[in-house]
């Protein structure tokens, strides 16, 4: 059951979207999100939707996978929609009803906005390996080193966390089996009882995680790790022509959405 947890799941592939530099993709997602929040009228939303569909087609990610990722968010999406429907003033759909045309429009736009937001970020993690993502992030944040932001430390923590997710999941599975073998019951009882049953899993898990961290630190030091200073990378990131074209398209999308907003579209 724990094997189902996917954080930033990556689908290996060899499309243009996969080959783009992770820095380009990170900037594109940023531009995309800004564009999404600038969109006001239906034409603006349509444009962003179109861009999303094109990206999905280019990266060979099926809509099915996007919807699978959306599932845990359904409740939030539904709640936002409901709030917008019931709390917007305007012309009622039927005389005397609380639901208004304006409310309906806002609800649909809100749902669209959240869905597109999630879909866009999923496209990033689906087409970029976690390692590439942290590498890209480190390089993008490099200027922040000037103001003493520990960029290298932040990114190495991120990549370590990603590296240890499968190991810790495996460990949790083992501990759960051990507790079950001694009669622990994780499936029955009230919510509070089940939460209590989790305690005997969390304690050993934390203890072992700390022990691992300790051993890992010694192993890293043995391999001459001494912080980010003077470190080189085996894989160098290089911006290609396709990266600049992609960035130009991203900027174009943002510009178009802002112009459309001015005309109220």
């Amino acid at each position, binding site marked *: 059951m724990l094997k189902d947890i996917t954080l930033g799941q990556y689908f290996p592939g060899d499309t243009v979207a996969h080959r783009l530099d992770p820095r380009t993709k990170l900037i594109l997602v940023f531009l995309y999100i800004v564009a999404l929040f600038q969109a006001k009228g239906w034409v603006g939303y349509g444009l962003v939707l179109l861009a999303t569909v094109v990206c999905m087609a280019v990266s060979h990610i099926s809509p099915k996978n996007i919807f699978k990722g959306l599932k845990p968010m359904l409740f939030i999406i539904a709640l936002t929609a409901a709030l917008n429907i019931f709390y917007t003033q305007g012309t009622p759909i039927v005389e005397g009803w609380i639901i208004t045309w304006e409310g309906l429009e806002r609800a649909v736009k809100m749902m669209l906005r959240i869905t597109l937001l999630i879909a866009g970020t999923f496209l990033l993690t689906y087409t970029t390996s*976690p390692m590439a993502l942290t590498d890209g992030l480190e390089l993008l944040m490099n200027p922040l080193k000037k103001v003493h932001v520990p960029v290298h430390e932040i990114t190495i923590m991120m990549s370590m966390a990603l590296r240890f997710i499968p190991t810790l999941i*495996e460990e949790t599975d083992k501990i759960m089996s051990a507790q079950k073998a001694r009669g622990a019951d994780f499936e029955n009882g009230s919510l509070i009882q089940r939460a209590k049953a989790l305690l005997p899993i969390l304690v050993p898990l934390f203890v072992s995680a700390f022990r691992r961290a300790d051993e890992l630190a010694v192993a890293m030091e043995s*391999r001459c790790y001494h912080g980010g200073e003077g*470190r080189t990378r*085996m894989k160098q990131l290089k911006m290609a022509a396709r990266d600049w074209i992609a960035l130009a398209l991203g900027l174009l999308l943002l510009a178009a959405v802002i112009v459309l907003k001015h005309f109220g579209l």
Partner: protein
Amino acid sequence: MIRFENVHYRYPDSDHDSLCGVDLTIEEGSFVAVLGHNGSGKSTLAKHMNAILLPTEGRVLVDGMDTSDEANLLPVRRTVGMVFQNPDNQIVANVVEEDVAFAPENLGVPPAEIRERVDNALKTVGMYEHRQHAPHLLSGGQKQRVAIAGVLAMQPRIIVLDEPTAMLDPQGRKEVVATVTRLCRENGMTVVLITHHMEECIGADRLIVMSYGKIAADGTPGEVFSQVELMEQAGLDVPETTRICWDLNKAGFSLPLDSLDVETCAENLISAAH
């Protein structure tokens, strides 16, 4: 070359020395096995070889560099690579080749050379085909070989393995011991193998037995295992071949105890029977 000069070590919250006056020289290019039961100080000994632990008394010299001098830290660690017991806790990246690249990246090696070192290291341990794999999907023996490759990419002259086989199945143990033996015999590296499996020591040039923080025996595996009573005192077993000859000698035979190879032992037994 690693030299221990009267090394004492006491863990911070302990009331007795874990190493009590160890004098030891490990020669260039040799395959040294260190045997001892739990708490004998063999792991403590290993951790002194690349300055993870510093002696409370005495000193450890790696190629003449004193390990307790802060300025020697990186050169010492670059000379002596260390492989640990749990492969999961020493792999840092989620792609095999990225992990092997970790040490040269830390040393600031140019990217093209890192690539070359990584490929060579992975070929040496026979994991080149798995370079794009995720480490958590490999078997224990494979993971430990990746860890060895990760140390090799640093190009150390000495490799210390602190119970690398303790968490592996028999198959994985064989893989690791074969890899380590090849490193010494074919690549001329100095290998120090810490273990509590005596079968893994048979192929070594030299066997050191640790007991209560002291060196209890030191010599070729044949010489050391012949001292059956001493081994028993250290809480250790001897190989089956030695055991058979020892028991027969007690019954009046005079068989040599240092033939650890099954074939030679059998020949000795046959000639004694005639």
